[in-house]
């Protein structure tokens, strides 16, 4: 298994890092203030596909990978840092380090959360 119980809660505690969470359908269910201030997304993102924050050329990979995960519950992208271009609400791109975790709730099913560490721009580290 590529997931850790309590992983999403652990990530959510990292208040200094932008945080976003998607449900089992890949739709955004929450993000924190840090994510909003750096990437510019507002509440309109809630209920939208998490693929929106990825560059267009990554979306086929995202959708296919998401669909595969639901079938075999394995992924090469979770539980380790990944450098990815991230799309801001205004269309700008910020190179960021994503750390994605997956967690399965007996009632609600899979949940996916990520912290994003901006590598470029005024918030870059």
């Amino acid at each position, binding site marked *: 298994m590529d997931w850790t119980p309590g992983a999403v809660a652990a990530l959510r505690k990292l208040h200094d890092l932008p945080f976003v969470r998607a449900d089992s359908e890949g739709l955004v269910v929450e993000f924190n203030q840090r994510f909003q201030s750096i990437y510019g997304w507002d509440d309109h993102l809630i209920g939208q596909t998490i693929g929106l924050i990825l560059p267009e*050329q990554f979306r086929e990979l995202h959708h296919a990978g998401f669909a595969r995960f*639901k079938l075999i519950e394995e992924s090469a992208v979770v539980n380790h840092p990944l450098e990815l271009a991230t799309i801001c609400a205004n269309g700008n791109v910020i190179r960021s380090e994503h750390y994605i975790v997956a967690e399965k709730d007996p009632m609600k099913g899979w949940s996916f959360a990520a912290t994003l560490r901006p590598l470029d721009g005024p918030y870059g580290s």
Partner: protein
Amino acid sequence: MAHMAADYRLDPDSDATALVEQLRQSLGLLRVAFDATGEAMLILDDQRCIRWVNRQAADDFGEGSSLRVIGRQLGSVLILRHLDQRPLLTDDLHHPLNQVVHGEGQTNLLVEVVANQQSSPSQVLQRMVSWRPIVEMKSEFTLLIFRDLDPLERALQQQRSFINRLAHELRTPLAIMNGNLRRLSRKNFESQFLLQSLDDLRSETQRMTGLVDKLLLLSELDTDRYHWHLEKRNLSTFLLYWLDSLTPHRRSLVQLRLPDASAHCEVELDQRAVCRIFDNLLENSLRFASGSGQLDIQVHVHQDDLDLIVSDQGPALTLNDDASLLFERFTRLEEHRDPSRSDGVGLGLALVKSLVEGMGGSVTGGCNIEATDNEPHGLQVCISFQHSS
């Protein structure tokens, strides 16, 4: 039925959700299947940017992570090379991404994975590379498949490489023999028998040299070691260049008929290959024709392609059943034309076929049926190439 229709109207959202769920499951199943194969697959968009990879491609080209290759230009992820290590640049007409405009195909290549860090050495893999256009979508994509050679292909590859090395090795002693025989023939021998023997020896050595040269060329084509120099020119330029290279006597045997429609026909060909193709066809004509050895070349221009109909006036073929045998290696035409002539080695038409196909064309052959008497008169070869006008 009315009840079902009413249900559909009442709950379109749930139908759409069910459809999305079904499509998602299908997509997941496809992804699982593509990830299970040992062939590395990549899909590129019309900007040559990698849009999709399977697990094997991620392992081979992205150190296990598809994110390392998605969104990047193909050339920044891997470099293709011919089997003799020459790079196959992205602007080379033989590059799969340029060949794909003509449809699907495959070739044996070396694939050098571009290292992510300066310190790590580049990995080079030999792969059968296939390409296929994906045109049924809104924009154009290309599927590239990189397959490891199976044991049979590997054995064939080794055999062809062996022939290539053997032909190279035979060239040197043959050249020495030819030189010595030339020197000997300049001496004044009184014995007619000795002179005749020398003459026989010289012609036999020349025949062997011709055989080795053809074998070498064929093995170069088989093993992708032939250095193509494709150029886009008017068809007549290629044909007239070949005519100019002939001796006046040989040139007088060729009747070239270029229609007005060919004036603006541009084709992508290799001039050396064109010369070799027509040299071989003219040699055949000279070998078998009992009279002058006339070679007739007619050009027929169609909308997308053109045919070069090459006819000789030799004896009729007796290949009744399978004309494709003409292009098989070591099919000696004399067995099908005139048993009294036995100086051919049976590689000329095989070479013609390999050279034509190497330039993206096709070739067929059969009897030359004269309209005047409706009787077979010799060999007719039809060579087709795509053109742009």
